[in-house]
């Protein structure tokens, strides 16, 4: 099998890079550890028991990893505890290690995502020089802008006409989605509080686009979209890369080793296919895109005499600066029937506090959005267990009086890197191939907690202004590690002593090694969802690799 470039991982970054290369005439081989997602066989949203099944189910869709000891919880931050009026508190005295949310499959974690397609706030890329915390990006927003446009047009992003925070050279390809009836109530509440409320920019089709149908507002994107109107990487970048005739995707092919060789070049990449057969080849260029937990694992596990600390780890930075999701959501009952289970998961958003200096005294931004579907409060089972109280006839009466009336406001915020939050290899746990598992270390520091207090306070204020009763449930990441957005373990930077890859996502030392997933982010952004930025970076890196190939520099 001949390929100019081998890409490991077919998630947001790997798929976008594959498309960027294949559409520019380069032959690409993509090795993906997980399977293809087949909605016809696997999606259950048309069945009555749909709510009993989270997507994706089964070990084949997950990578194994472990958690290190979690932080003890401090009564000082009791207001940040997660709780539900029926089910009690979520955690005990120690922070609970729930999940690193990801998908192993063609499309990666975008199979699971809820379609938010955000550009980073330009100032969030200058955290160190402008706000004295975290790190700067080695590129500016302006250098990414045209790649954002490329990604938005390939995916078919639906978004509003104006965005006062992020300059645009071209309008979104599709008009925004109408706010759901419940989202309109949250918008009115924000207006009462002097806050803005705009349509969210979404990788969900508001109109048919390039052969894919428009959305029908089922709200269950995170359970996998059966219509392919959600712009997950498999139905967008992968499909178009394959259509070029220059991209081969091998699913169920798990990369087990990368061998550093002479001349500062990666000599070999090895994988095991679905039948257990081992393969290897000598890549001209190798692009890693396994996500911010598995990419550092693979690099650290690839130590040999040429790279004694692990591949591309000359700076000792591989695995460091891990940034997890800082999130909060409050949910409460509205007196009116709103049919709030309807609509795309996150159609409305408030960006007012997204700039890194928007919250007085707390560097790092946050955003607020609709949260019912993301909190999984959009179906009868979750209403029965988490919303309606009591039992017997009283419970049934509560169901009648509550269904469709929940409003949830969710917030995501900046997570600044700290020295207690990182990925390393677990010396006590190995996978079926004998490779040490990634181990997640996590610590939440005071700035994050103060930001969370702000986020929780505003969520509660918005609900109150919307006329709801007191919250019946709140969920935050102070007492529970549950990350959907993870970044930062192979930071990009201009100084080889403090970063892993350069501004073009190329290893500072290893000349044919590139990383194009969320691990290269120097900062998390103030609540922006990352996939569009990952894709823009990966397209940019792909264009660079193609130029190097053309100049015979690889």
């Amino acid at each position, binding site marked *: 099998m001949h390929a100019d470039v081998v890409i490991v991982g077919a998630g947001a970054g790997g798929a976008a890079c594959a498309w960027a290369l294949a559409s520019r005439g380069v032959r690409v081989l993509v090795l993906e550890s997980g399977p293809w997602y087949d909605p016809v066989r696997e999606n259950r949203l048309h069945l009555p028991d749909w*709510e009993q099944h989270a997507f994706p189910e089964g070990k084949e869709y997950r990578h194994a990893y472990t958690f290190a000891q979690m932080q003890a919880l401090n009564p000082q931050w009791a207001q940040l505890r997660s709780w539900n009026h029926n089910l009690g508190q979520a955690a005990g005295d120690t922070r609970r290690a729930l999940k690193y*949310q990801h998908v192993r499959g063609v499309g990666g974690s975008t199979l699971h995502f809820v379609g938010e397609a955000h550009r980073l706030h330009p100032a969030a890329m200058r955290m160190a020089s402008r706000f004295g915390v975290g790190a700067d990006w080695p590129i500016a927003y302006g250098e990414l802008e045209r790649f954002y446009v490329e990604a938005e047009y390939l995916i078919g992003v639906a978004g509003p006409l104006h965005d006062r925070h992020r300059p645009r050279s071209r309008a979104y390809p599709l008009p925004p989605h109408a706010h759901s009836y419940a989202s309109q109530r949250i918008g009115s509440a924000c207006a009462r509080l002097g806050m803005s409320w705009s349509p969210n920019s979404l990788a969900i089709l508001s109109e048919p686009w390039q052969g894919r149908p428009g959305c029908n507002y089922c709200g269950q994107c995170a359970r996998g979209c059966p219509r392919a109107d959600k712009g997950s990487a498999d139905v967008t970048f992968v499909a178009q890369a394959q259509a070029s005739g220059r991209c081969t995707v091998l699913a169920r092919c798990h990369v087990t080793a990368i061998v550093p060789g002479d001349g500062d070049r990666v000599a070999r990449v090895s994988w095991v296919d679905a039948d257990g057969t081992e393969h290897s080849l000598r890549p001209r260029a190798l692009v890693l895109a396994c996500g911010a937990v598995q990419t550092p694992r693979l690099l650290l596990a690839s130590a040999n005499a040429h790279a004694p600390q692990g591949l591309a780890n000359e700076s000792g930075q591989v695995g460091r600066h891990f940034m997890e999701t800082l999130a909060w959501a409050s949910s409460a009952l509205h007196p009116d029937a709103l049919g709030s289970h309807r*609509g795309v998961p996150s159609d409305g958003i408030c960006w007012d506090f997204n700039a890194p200096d928007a919250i007085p005294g707390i560097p790092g931004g946050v955003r607020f959005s609709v949260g019912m579907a993301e909190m999984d409060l959009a179906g009868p089972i979750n209403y029965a267990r988490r919303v309606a109280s009591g039992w017997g006839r009283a419970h049934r009466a509560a*169901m009648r009086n509550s269904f469709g009336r929940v409003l949830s406001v969710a917030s995501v915020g900046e997570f600044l890197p700290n020295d207690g939050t990182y990925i390393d290899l677990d010396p006590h746990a190995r996978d079926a191939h004998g490779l040490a598992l990634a181990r997640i270390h996590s610590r939440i520091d005071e700035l994050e907690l103060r930001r969370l207090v702000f986020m929780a306070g505003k969520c509660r204020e918005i609900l109150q202004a919307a006329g709801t009763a007191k919250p019946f449930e709140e969920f935050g990441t102070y007492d*529970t590690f549950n990350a959907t957005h993870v970044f930062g373990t192979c930071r990009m930077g201009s100084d080889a002593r403090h970063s892993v890859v350069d501004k073009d996502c190329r290893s500072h030392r290893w000349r044919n090694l590139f990383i194009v997933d969320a691990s290269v982010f120097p900062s998390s952004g103030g609540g922006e969802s990352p996939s569009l930025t990952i894709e823009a970076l990966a397209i940019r890196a792909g264009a660079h690799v193609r130029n190097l190939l053309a100049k015979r520099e690889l």
Partner: protein
Amino acid sequence: MPFTRRQVLTLTGASLLLSLLTWWPRRETPLVPASRPDELSAWIDTLLPAETDFPGAVALGVGERMAAAIAREPAYARLTAAAMGWLAARAREAGGTTFAALPEARRVDIVAAAAASPEGSTPRTFFQATLDDALFHAYADARAWTGLTYAGPPQPIGFPDQAAAPKSG
């Protein structure tokens, strides 16, 4: 007492975040018969009884699914065995031979007593675990959705009327 509420909540699942995974996800349930099907059925029927717009948990087949879950989980089975002892004693006190043989009003009193028992006690823990399980299975059946103004499941129609006020009825 071998069970705390937290242990049973852990047993029946854990909690969620900004992702549409449920707060308290569940275990899978293979088919293994439970030892006291009549008493368990009567208990479940009292937890979620039939009403004009709801067939009742037992009629929805919840009893079989829960019996299977109990038989599969040793910890759940131990809890159930202890709870059945408690239930039999309460039934005798109420003048019956078994819980299932009692009239509905007496069964309701006994479930209410279990719900009001101290946190971590056998009856309270059993009440919490079985109620949560019964709801999980009952509302996975479209017959339980009557009267909720829910036009699900989510696909294949979706909710194209999402921007408008919901239709009543």
